[in-house]
């Protein structure tokens, strides 16, 4: 009898991909995901056993583990002191009065009565929201178009988006100041009125434009990561094929799937706007960061209390976004795996 070659038969009857009857997939994972999940412990076990054997050969596994833990604790301690030390000091400074030798939360109570505080916070929030809206209105369609139609331009656009990292805000502000001065000599002209609107003290519209540039590197990166997580071309073609117009494709298909990336970009932009001092200060506006420096200088504990509260607020937003964005990202990752 000749040598039997059974490879063709084996291939015909079912390859290694998938496995398991279709439809028997448990919720949260299909048959094609089942194999890696089963295989993973085996792969993980081998190196673990090897390391364990090496440690046993040298003796004193427990001793080594405790040494590892000691180093880990030491590193965590140093990093913790570096990061938390200033915050704890600031908190101590705001709640403890060394002259009276007593604790008090009075500075936090004074916050809301402080002159200019509510107005600066409100203005900063509005500036942040406007900046975020402006940024996404510019970036989302542009990045989608680049990804779909002009992928070769991605590198160029990324380089341009990173420029604000190397251009000093002072230099940027100098340029903006000179542009804002164009209409000064022509009172009554449209450019004069535009200048005035852009520099309104109640809501300086010029700031979101500048902030959008400053936040460009962070927003670009966040959105780019979001775009990479989905198969944009397929989603667009599937929805176009079903009869969706471009605005509907953007609104009902792309934006919901870019939510994680957009939330990340929004948080980074929010943090940047809340902490931005240079541009607003030079241009003569008083958002939150400028108010802390200018109006809070006289009353020692108050500005520190404000800073701590704003930090807590930022963390709260960050956790919220991580929670919301994480769930979406997990869903998308599951799908693409």
């Amino acid at each position, binding site marked *: *009898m*000749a*040598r*039997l*070659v*059974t*490879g*063709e*038969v084996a*291939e*015909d*009857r*079912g*390859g*290694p*991909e*998938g*496995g398991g*009857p*279709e*439809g028997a*997939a448990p*919720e*949260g994972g*299909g*048959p*094609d995901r089942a194999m890696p999940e089963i295989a993973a412990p085996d792969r993980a076990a081998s190196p673990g056993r090897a390391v364990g054997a090496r440690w046993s050969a040298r003796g004193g596994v427990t001793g080594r583990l405790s040494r590892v833990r000691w180093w880990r604790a030491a590193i965590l301690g140093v990093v913790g002191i570096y990061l938390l030390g200033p915050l704890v000091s600031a908190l101590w400074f705001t709640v403890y009065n060394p002259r009276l030798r007593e604790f008090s939360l009075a500075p936090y109570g004074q916050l809301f009565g402080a002159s200019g505080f509510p107005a600066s916070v409100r203005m900063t929030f509005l500036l942040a929201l406007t900046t975020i809206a402006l940024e996404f209105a510019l970036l989302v369609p542009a990045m989608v178009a680049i990804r779909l139609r002009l992928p070769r331009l991605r590198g160029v656009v990324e380089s341009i988006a990173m420029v604000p990292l190397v251009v000093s805000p002072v230099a940027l502000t100098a340029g903006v100041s000179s542009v804002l001065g164009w209409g000064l000599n022509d009172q009554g002209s449209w450019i004069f009125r535009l200048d005035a609107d852009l520099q309104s003290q109640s809501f300086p519209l010029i700031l979101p434009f500048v902030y959008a540039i400053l936040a460009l590197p962070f927003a670009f990166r966040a959105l780019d990561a979001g775009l990479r997580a*989905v*198969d944009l071309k*397929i*989603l667009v*073609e*599937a*929805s*176009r*094929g*079903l*009869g*969706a*117009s471009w605005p*509907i494709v953007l609104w009902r*298909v792309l934006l*919901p*799937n870019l939510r994680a990336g957009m939330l990340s970009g929004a948080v980074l932009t929010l943090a940047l706007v809340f902490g931005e001092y240079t541009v607003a200060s030079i241009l003569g506006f008083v958002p939150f960061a400028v108010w802390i420096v200018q109006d809070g200088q006289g009353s020692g504990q108050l500005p520190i209390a404000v800073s701590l509260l704003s930090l807590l607020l930022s963390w709260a937003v960050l956790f919220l976004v991580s929670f919301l964005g994480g769930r*979406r990202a997990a*869903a*998308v990752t*599951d*799908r693409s795996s």
Partner: protein
Amino acid sequence: MPAAGLELSALRRCYGAVRALDGLELALAPGELVALLGPSGCGKTTALRIVAGFERPDAGAVRLDGADITPLSAAKRDMGMVFQSYSLFPHLTAAQNVAFGLRLRKTAAPARAARAEELLELVGIGGHGARYPHQLSGGQQQRVALARALAIRPKVLLLDEPLSALDAQVRLQLRDEIRRVQLDLGITTLFVTHDQEEALSIADRVAVMRSGRLEQCAAPAQLYQRPATAFVAQFVGTMNRVRGTMVDTDLVEVAGHRLPVDGERPVPGTKVEVLLRPEAVGLEAVPARAAADPAVGTVRTATFLGAITRIAVVLEDGTQVKADLPSHRASEFPAAGRARLVPAARPVLVIEP
């Protein structure tokens, strides 16, 4: 669902110096399923994307029921498409995915839900409507994609290698399901694949493409038994190429046997290559010390395929010939044994080398 006739007329499409489509002509009758088959890069997916409206041809036209739809955007063509990769909207449930196109057409919510449920039932996954794509297996996702494509009652269904990402077992199952649904609905369907078995088993007609052109479009049996060109003969099914000589206007001599020849053939006396299917080749065992004979060779391998076993024999001149024999006869041809070629049926094609 209204079945429509589709016509691809002299389609040309170039990407720089690469000519993806070079005057492609193809017509689908209403309710017909035609498979576009060809090797990678032959232009079949480009043709499908042009029909769908995702690409514009450099020249030529796409006509639906006689009307030129070439200038129309994809959104206005009323065609349902299932993609090779999983294309469900990840933020929508299976039922919402199916209802997406209906929502765009402003169908009332209750009617949308009913239609989605009806189609999910049709493709065999009723009851999975509330699941998100990441909670479905690959096969289930492609079923939902099929239901989504059909929900809008398209005039033409376009399938772009919808089974290639699935494992073999699910692929066979879904292939039969697609054919059943297509026949039930009587919808005109263009199915792109590089898998000849898939094309031959599912299609009313198979269109074989090569270098942007149509080589042959015929029913699967005709394509297999009467290929128009050597390329089609080689591409569809397994084919042997054996040397022979034309001994008469309609007779070719191969391995000492004279076989009748149909169709175009060279003049008598011409050295030719004879194309024979493995099932048209018989074998007989010969003693190891038999006299030299160009029709005798050495058995190399035997591949068990169930009812038949495919035996590969290498002739003296190095030509390898495959013969399909009933499996109970396989033991007559051990590895390294000697076997004589016995052409048992008329050749598929005779070509000049």
